């Protein structure tokens, strides 16, 4: 069988190598071709199982992913010290749609970076390596491999911000790296703990996802004399890494800095896929491998999610920098993911259908936010490229000079604030419906925040694009075809998901169903 996943992961790296030896002038084209081919191939992840005949159930779950490749890699065992790491890639519904999103956004990021002229070759190569790292994260089916890719992604991201960023780029890059490493330290501790606890408990040492999902750690750990449920500790350790990436309050402070300083395409990727790594990790790793721990932590998680939503919106309201505003709106929007997951894993004897709705909403929000925020950042990027300014109040009446950009920007903002018919609505609606049963108060807070969301987004739109034209910007040209291309492509995706969300729901159903079943089988705690 053709190793599709391996190809998807390493084709961009090959592209980067080709770039380094290829002619300097063609680097944009080489990068675009490689990422484009990766994108086209990634679509087969979706089409393949459908063509295969087993229908939408064929996407599989964590136990039986639709796509799976496994090669034994590191195996050494000396007595009780066993280290087994397999090169195990897999993709079920949850992975597939993130893989496709990543391939799409990476491709668009390269097209959107056509104007980068400072050391283009290295820039493009790093973007491709970043794509490899993220692809690896989304389709690693071995926990150690997952962590490895999680770290691999860090290096290109650091360099991209530190070299091509704005004025405070080094500060932002270091902040990003230090936060992430801090989180992944805890994550690695959790991984080792999980691996050995499970190994000691069952006698078999493996970090493969199917093994971890089908065997759960039992008992308690005693730390400094305090006894703590093993699963809760594991959940917290693993989640800390993801919480920083998501980002969850109070670990979010790296995000506005990184977004503001990063070049446009990198911001797009950061918001579009890197944050999703945190959400993906939360669902795939924390919830799947420590379900009881997740349930124990569901209430705090829901509260934190609600705080995320309202705090992010409040911060957005007072921003003057367009990019910072979008960054904080990301914090707010990722809060819906947290809330949705919390509702799906929450205690209480909720109807499983509500759980599934909440989880589906959270997953669709991941996709929707990736596409919509990508659009917003591209729009700001186009504007910044021409005006070299992102101050909202400095603009005004840009509609007159750049109607095309204004229209697409308006479209993106509508999607972001959850206009029915666009993808944001589907996600948020599902989250609200699903989570009301479990966490009514938090859901109400989240729903009320929609007003704030509409407020800051529309207010920004009004101040920058409508009203009388500020004569200072009379020389600006409208976005050209190249700049519009990624925007339009993303717009189509957003519209399609909004009008026909069924295809995403079908894709996700088998994987999410598995999780809901696991959660349903847990003893219901009377809280």
């Amino acid at each position, binding site marked *: 069988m053709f190793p599709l996943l391996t190809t998807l992961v390493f084709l961009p790296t090959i592209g*980067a*190598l080709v770039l*380094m030896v290829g002619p300097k002038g063609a680097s944009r084209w080489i990068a675009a071709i490689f990422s484009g081919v990766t994108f086209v191939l990634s679509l087969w992840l979706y089409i393949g199982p459908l063509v295969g005949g087993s229908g939408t159930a064929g996407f599989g779950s964590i136990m039986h992913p639709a796509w799976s490749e496994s090669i034994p890699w590191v195996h*050494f065992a*000396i*007595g*009780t*010290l066993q*280290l087994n790491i397999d090169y195990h890639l897999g993709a079920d519904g949850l992975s597939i749609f993130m893989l496709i999103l990543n391939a799409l956004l990476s491709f668009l990021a390269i097209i959107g970076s056509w104007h980068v002229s400072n*050391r283009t070759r*290295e820039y493009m*190569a*790093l973007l491709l*390596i970043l794509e490899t790292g993220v692809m690896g994260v989304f389709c690693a089916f071995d926990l150690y491999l997952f962590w490895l890719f999680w770290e691999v992604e860090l*290096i*290109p991201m650091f*360099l991209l911000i*530190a*070299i091509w960023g704005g004025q405070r780029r080094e500060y932002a890059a270091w902040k990003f790296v230090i936060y992430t*490493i*801090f989180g*992944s*330290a*805890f994550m*690695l*501790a*959790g991984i*080792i*703990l999980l691996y*050995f*606890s499970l190994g*000691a408990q069952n006698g078999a040492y493996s970090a493969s996802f199917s093994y971890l999902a089908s065997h759960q750690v039992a008992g308690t*750990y*005693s*730390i*400094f004399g305090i006894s703590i449920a093993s699963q809760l*500790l594991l959940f917290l*350790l693993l989640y800390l890494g993801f919480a920083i990436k998501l980002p969850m309050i109070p670990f979010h402070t790296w995000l506005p800095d990184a977004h503001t300083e990063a070049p446009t395409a990198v911001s797009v990727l950061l918001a579009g896929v890197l944050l999703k790594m945190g959400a993906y990790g939360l669902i795939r790793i924390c919830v799947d491998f420590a379900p009881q721990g997740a349930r124990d932590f569901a209430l705090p998680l829901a509260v934190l999610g609600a705080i995320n939503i309202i705090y992010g919106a409040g911060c957005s309201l007072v921003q003057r920098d367009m990019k910072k505003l979008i960054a904080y709106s990301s914090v707010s929007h990722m809060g819906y993911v947290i809330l949705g997951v919390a509702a799906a894993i929450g205690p209480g004897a909720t109807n499983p259908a509500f759980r599934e709705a909440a989880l589906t909403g959270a997953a669709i929000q991941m996709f929707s936010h990736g596409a919509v925020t990508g659009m917003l950042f591209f729009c700001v990027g186009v504007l910044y490229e021409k005006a070299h300014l992102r101050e909202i109040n400095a603009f005004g009446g840009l509609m007159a000079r750049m109607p095309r950009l204004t229209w697409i920007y308006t479209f993106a903002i509508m999607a972001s604030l959850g206009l029915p018919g666009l993808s944001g609505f589907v996600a948020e609606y599902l989250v609200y419906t699903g989570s009301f049963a479990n966490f009514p108060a938090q859901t109400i807070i989240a729903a009320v925040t929609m007003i704030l969301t509409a407020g800051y987004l529309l207010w920004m739109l009004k101040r920058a694009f409508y009203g009388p034209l500020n004569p200072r910007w009379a020389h600006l040209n409208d976005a050209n075809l190249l700049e519009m291309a990624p925007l339009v492509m993303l717009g189509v995706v957003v519209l399609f998901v909004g009008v026909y969300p069924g295809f995403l729901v079908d894709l996700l159903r088998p994987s999410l169903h598995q999780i809901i079943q696991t959660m349903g089988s847990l003893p219901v705690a009377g809280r």
Partner: protein
Amino acid sequence: MAFTYTITAGDWGHIAPQLTLLGVALLVMVIDTMLPARLRGGLVIIALLGVLSAAASALLVAQLGGAPSAFFGMITSDGLAIFSMLVILGATALALLIAPGYIERQGIHQQGEYYALVLLAATGMLLMSTASNLMMIFLGLELLSLPLYVLCAFVPGQQIAQESGMKYFLLSSFASGFLLYGMALVYGATGATGLTQIHAFVASHMPLDSSLAPLLLVGVVLIVVGLAFKVSAIPFHAWTPDVYQGAPTPVTALMSVGTKTAALVALARILVVALGPITSQWQPLLIALAILTMLGGNLLAATQTNVKRMLAYSSIAHAGYLLIGIAVGTNLGLAAMIFYLAAYGIMNIGAFGVVQVIERSVGFGTELDRFRGLGARQPWLAGAMTVFLLALAGIPGTVGFVAKYAVFSAAVLASHPELTIVGVIASMISFYYYLRIIWAMYFELNPEGDPATQGARAALGAQGTPPLMVESSGQSAVIAAKSVSMRQPIALGAMLSLGLAVLATIILGILPGPLFELARQAVGLP
């Protein structure tokens, strides 16, 4: 006659490695007086041969087997003893190999005394790690410390070296006082200084009654404090950076590995072997020490700008990882610890070896600046340093990773997840300062017009990542100009030592099985 003691030849045979080293130390002193000055460089060869034959006799002792204890329970030659002796002797050999170039550069005339003292210190380390009686542990400690005091202050006319020796002497005597107090109390409580007898006594008096417990426990605490000084565990670490920085680098290398090995093995024997029945009593103390040491060592190391000092703090941090092996109180923990000691010996002496080549005078010239652009100036040296630093950081593929993995897994399997969690977090912190040195060696260059820079560019191109230019002012040009002239010749011995260490770091990183198997057998695991 009540005393039927007779010392047999077998008894002396058991301490053959120690005797060999001692003999060679005396031999070196005698030959030193007879050799003309220009031939004294050859003394290192005699010393090395002595170390090798000591290692051979250690293997012979292991081969011959027989009763593991000699001199009425003063000395043991069990697996733990043999393994730790080999680690110490290996470290001594590597440290001797890097010494000649250094001695030449520093203008040290008393070579005979230098080698003799190194060998005497090594003898003390061997005695301490093979001792099975509190009294022998103390004497071994003194025998290894005394020569080290002098060696720290060996380079004449350097205040920092004098200070180093003085500080080490003062604080170490202080620690010895604690240790001796503790031993006296344990003796008072149990009526024995032999570890086997102590074990028998404690095991037969479980649970400890109120008349015995305070005396014994205070004694144990004081012993732990005394030995914690020697392994430089936080909060008893204050002497380490100053002493390590001021001492001649080959001595620092020996000290950081040999002393630690001897003291940790002694601590393991006292706690895990002799006081095993009261594990739950001393365990919290050790856990606290390990956690403090891991976190504190790494955090303090991250703030250093002098590489030698940074390595000193890093060795403190590694003492923390090593203490995990004792703190978990299992045989697997001990196996992991001695494996870690072997790994640590190789990579740490390697790192200090590189520092020694770079260093111009005692305690100076090891600033991070000296490492800037080393990758272009001396690619082989920088490559070796990179390997050692990555190993110290615990990157997979190096022996450092396997060692950390073994220790952490031992902690989880002994149900002490907190040690694993803190250990992993601490090692992530350590990435920062190890990588900073690597960064300085390869990435911090003069941006324009320097042939060295272009070499680095080419190297970077192969890796697919562009160099991040940190320097941009005219000042950096001056630094770079100096850098080019700072090229140091590498002495043959140092080259050999570094080469061996690099090979061992990588080979043991990829195939750790046999060595770990040895470590397991050394502590008697099936």
